[in-house]
């Protein structure tokens, strides 16, 4: 490397803007759902670009952007101990009730 003092790390090495995760709320009353990610220099521009990339076909009424670096994810290696024990516990699902129509987004 010709500039050994330059910042290393993935983003810096490729001279890329930070990554943002984008959440769209499809309509009032529903929750925001993760729909993808994009690169942007800061939050304000991330919002505008999210509008262009993820909301240009009337997908939403509200947008959130979150720096991807702020998300703490579970370790794929922990999948067995995290999720498998839930397999045989059907009684934890509210499937034994008839839900009224009006709450069909539960």
């Amino acid at each position: 490397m010709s500039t050994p003092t330059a910042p290393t790390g993935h983003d810096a090495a490729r001279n890329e803007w930070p990554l943002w995760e984008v959440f769209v709320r499809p309509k009032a009353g529903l929750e925001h759902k993760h729909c993808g990610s994009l690169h942007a220099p800061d939050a304000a521009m991330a919002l505008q670009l999210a509008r262009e990339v993820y909301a240009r076909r009337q997908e939403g009424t509200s947008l959130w952007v979150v720096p991807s670096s702020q998300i703490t994810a579970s370790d794929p290696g922990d999948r067995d101990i995290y999720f498998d024990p839930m397999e045989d516990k059907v009684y934890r699902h509210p499937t034994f009730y008839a839900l009224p129509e009006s709450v069909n987004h539960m």
Partner: protein
Amino acid sequence: MSTPSIQPGRDPAVQYLLRLGDFCLIHAQRLGEWCGHAPILEEDIALTNLALDLIGQARALLTRAGQVGHERGAPAAFDEDQLAFLREERDYLNPTLVELPRGDFAFTVLRNAAVATWMRLMWTRLQASRDAELAAIAAKALKESRYHEQHAADWVVRLGDGTPESHRRLQDALDRLWRYTLELFEADAVDEAAAASGLGPRWADLREDWHAAMQALLDEAGVRAPATGSHVTTGRRGVHSEHMGRLLAEMQHLQRAYPGGAW
């Protein structure tokens, strides 16, 4: 070219509408050139979305121009495609500013900011047009222009306030572009007729608000507009720069080669 050209006539109301329609159309044509060339993928989509908004506005305005021409004595109502693709260069009435080559990204976002601000002011006033159709077009387009203005202004500030290179490019763009903005506020008989009939404001009526908005933006970006000379460009009278012919050749090619072609 195999398809004969149309002549939209010299009616002032039609000319007023064509000026606005061509303003949007030619601006969109230049923005479309960024497709596949923007500095980042997301901005590529943003610029082409913006161009599509402008084409939508141009379609509505040209359609209305064709109808008004017919109402006011033209033998036939030209449709949007005829007006967009089958006129001679002299019958396009966009201000010269929007036919200039797209330049670098700084030039593009600065021109976008200048045009979107102008459009926002124009649409705001046109909502009160005595032509109900035009008022409805304005109400819809205003939201689009407000977003275009916000997006472009955001970039202008970033470039002005960014690296030495981005600042220099923005200042260069401003030095090159500023003199073309004089034409956006020229008064003439077409404008007077529109103001008198209640069709819409004189372009000159937007001058003060536009300058205030642009001055605030340029201050924030830390760049300075050059002094303007006395030369005013004449695109909206149909007398264009050397760049217009090539732009039209590309824009009209398909419709001239395949008359009435549709997707």
